């Protein structure tokens, strides 16, 4: 007789909890019925939300990986140009942690931006001439100039802003949204990830869109450019659709036997994923088929938008996915990590992203989708006001700076033409209304109708949240 599967149904911790909490016979009943055990003991309820009427039903997160320089894009600091080349005052520098890359520098000369700033729109938001398309839509944007984070390097900072913890292992924002709100379209994943192709820089890794300890069907599914958007989704040569169907049916029967014996929720997830993959064989090519998009749409998103895998093409795809009811779409664009040669390198990043970002927001707006779609643009941290490496008349660089950075949001429930928070005149420290990464996460969940303190998942003996034990919803930026 084999008992091997049995003791994995409940852990020693579960046993002790159930029997020592004085629930005696009642708890024994659930020990006898493993179905109760596997599903109820954890008290994890899928699709428990919305907790209150949502403003946003979908979110598109445009992640600018590497840390865009706020001083060269949105956070206008004329003082830096005035004091260009002078040492940053000790009182401003403080004794904040610096990276090993610039921390050893003998001097920290301030670097003024090489780019011209102008005020735009009725709201008079400052945007540099690096972002000509974004500056046209500032009246739809909500800038947060006082974001700050705790991590100083890419890996922990990106993990922090995407999963709420610097350490790997927690579910990402999109996974939490899927867990809390469920899906509107069973033919497509609830959380889709689009990474700009052929970009280099700081690595991206699946944990940024992973499900952590949440059931695995909540993880982000990466769609690739080219013939096979989702790897291994197509039938190999010689396998007909009917063959695939009958194979899946037999597999399902086997899995169900296994599920009966072990009650492992991961088996259920696996069955569902096979079924979804089967449906995606038709739904994915349909949503990825951008040939029918009219030319004026391609003109809006810019020349790159016809090249699959570019940020522009991904932005267009994001809209198509949103239209089909996908809850979260996350774009990643690498290459914002401008330690040196910033004036030239940032031009490239802006050229690749500025027009598509603005086009996406305009496109969503004219279709009425911005009404209930939230768009978030931002990186994992900001950059220093002093130069990293040599400051020359035509060159400078900026190091990582977690103390302040700028992001913007648009759409459902956030004020348009609004700027929240401020940095000091040096663009180095927070001066007004700081907003922590956890506050941003709490606010995004709030817009989606979720109370960040109620959206929990019990794992390893305690309940986890996206915002851990922190985070305050920022009502100032909400309509």
């Amino acid at each position, binding site marked *: 007789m084999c008992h091997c599967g049995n003791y994995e149904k409940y852990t020693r911790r579960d046993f002790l909890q159930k029997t020592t909490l004085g629930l005696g016979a009642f708890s024994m009943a659930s020990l006898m019925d493993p179905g109760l055990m596997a599903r109820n003991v954890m008290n994890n309820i899928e699709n428990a939300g919305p907790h*209150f*009427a949502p403003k946003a039903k979908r979110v598109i997160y445009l992640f600018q990986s590497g840390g865009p320089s706020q001083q060269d894009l949105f956070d206008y600091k004329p003082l830096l140009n005035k004091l260009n080349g002078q040492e940053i005052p000790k009182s401003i520098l403080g004794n904040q942690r610096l990276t090993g890359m610039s921390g050893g520098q003998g001097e920290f000369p301030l670097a003024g931006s090489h780019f011209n700033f102008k005020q735009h729109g009725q709201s008079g938001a400052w945007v540099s001439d690096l972002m000509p398309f974004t500056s046209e839509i500032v009246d739809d944007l909500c800038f947060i100039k006082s974001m700050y984070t705790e991590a100083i390097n890419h890996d922990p900072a990106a993990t922090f802003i995407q999963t709420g913890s610097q350490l790997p292992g927690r579910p990402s924002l999109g996974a939490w949204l899927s867990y809390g709100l469920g899906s509107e*379209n069973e033919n497509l994943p609830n959380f889709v990830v689009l990474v700009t192709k052929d970009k280099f820089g700081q690595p991206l890794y699946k944990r940024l869109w992973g499900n952590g300890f949440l059931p695995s069907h909540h993880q982000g599914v990466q769609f690739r450019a080219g013939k096979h958007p989702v790897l291994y989704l197509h039938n190999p040569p010689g396998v007909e659709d009917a063959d695939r169907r009958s194979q899946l049916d037999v597999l399902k029967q086997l899995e169900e036997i296994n599920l009966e014996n072990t009650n492992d929720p991961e088996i259920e997830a696996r069955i569902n994923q096979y079924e979804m993959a089967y449906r995606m064989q038709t*739904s994915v090519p349909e949503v990825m088929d951008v040939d029918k998009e009219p030319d004026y749409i391609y003109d809006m998103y810019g020349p790159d938008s016809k090249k699959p895998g570019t940020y522009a093409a991904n932005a267009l795809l994001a809209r198509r996915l949103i*239209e089909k009811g996908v809850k979260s779409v996350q774009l990643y664009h690498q290459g914002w990590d401008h330690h040196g040669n910033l004036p030239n390198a940032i031009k490239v990043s802006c050229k690749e992203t500025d027009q598509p970002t603005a086009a996406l927001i305009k496109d969503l707006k*004219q*279709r*009425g989708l911005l*009404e209930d779609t939230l768009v978030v643009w931002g990186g994992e941290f900001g950059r220093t006001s002093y130069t990293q490496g040599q400051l020359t008349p035509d060159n400078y660089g900026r190091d990582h700076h977690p103390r302040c950075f700028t992001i913007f949001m648009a759409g459902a429930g956030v004020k348009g033409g609004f700027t929240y928070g401020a940095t000091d005149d040096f663009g180095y420290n927070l001066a007004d209304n700081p907003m922590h990464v956890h506050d941003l996460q709490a606010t995004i969940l709030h817009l989606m109708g979720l109370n960040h303190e109620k959206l929990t998942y019990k794992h390893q003996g305690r309940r986890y949240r996206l915002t851990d034990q922190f985070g305050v919803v920022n009502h100032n930026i909400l309509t």
Partner: protein
Amino acid sequence: MIEILGKLHPALVHLPIGFILITLFYEWYKGKPSVSLWGVSTLSAILAMGTGFILLKTGHFEGLNMFLHMIMGVVTTVITFLLFLAKMRDGSLFRGQNTFLKIALIVVLGIGGHMGAELTHGEEYLPLPFQIKSDSIIDYSRHDTIILYDDIIQPIFKAKCNRCHEDGDARGKLNMTSKEGLLSDKFGDPAVKPGDLQNSEIFKRISLSTWHKKYMPPSGPDLTYGEKRVIEWWIRSGGSFTDNVKMMSPPDDIKELLFEEYGIDFTKKSFYEKAEVSALDQSVIDKIKSKGFNIGTLADNSNFVDVNVKGHSSEWTSERLQSLLEAKIQITWLDLSDSDFDDSHSNILSSFPNITKLKLQNTNITDATLENIVNMNELTVLNLYGTNASDQSIDNILKINKLEKLYIWQTKISEEGVERLKQGNSALEVIGASTL
């Protein structure tokens, strides 16, 4: 100097309590009295009583509870002294009343001690299981029903001040439980001088440095920043005892505080956040789902539902749409976009009175469909992009008074039509008219 003796009272009262109990126990256990123990009890009782009088004199106490406590103290001392006398006379005195006196002593000592503890630690120091808290729960969601004084200011006082400044025990001769007490100036500046922050004693005391000897409260939890700010705003704006929060039109920073501390939400509420409807039966929800719709309540405290078409593309039959009629009261967001919905099905729309957001974009509807939406009195968002709606619908659209946003990209509505819309409803935002 003499004040210090008064302050010793709360400590010294424990002496007679202890000695008297020991004496009684000794007498019961040994079966014979100890004159010296009774003597010590009497002395300690006199000491406690004496310091009590000094405290009463120097501490500005007032109120019925204080008076009763004093009486109990005096009676305790007197009975102890009488019993001491009786024992000294070898039991010849009060032979008949001995048991009665001892029982009376225990009762008076117990009540007097309890009252003293209440005066020192506040009325709720001893949480007894049979004490029922009578506080009613305040509904903070409607700010025109929240009386600032009754529902916010007095509860702050109750939690942080009234322990010492109450009816039965008004220290500093200040009773903070009533309007009269707060406005009374019989002991210097009044606690609250409406409109005059500088001369309102309460505000002065709570805003001192915490180490200042006049800082209030001297013990127990301090007032929070938000509580101090709300009290400041209340006094400054006239110290009304009757106005509701909405009438007082708080400035933005106070609104923010009231939201953070009390959850009073001043943001504009949508129809579906204010109105209430009955809950849908699960069987109806299941039925609608089986017809190819996504349906879910807007929130876990709302019975309104949000309905859209699964996958946004499907074959339409009247029968499928008919299933929605069972939820016609509850549906407030209806999204039929990117589907084969057309005029032939559209008369069903006239059956949904509570729709606030209607999405018909990328469907085959024409002006005929829009005949059916004129009775949607709560409609605020209407999306017609990618339909055949034309200028003929403008009169119908203008009949919807509450409409705030209209999406008309890729429709047949002309620039003239947009002008007419804007003139007819100045609050209407028309999006997608020409180039954005």
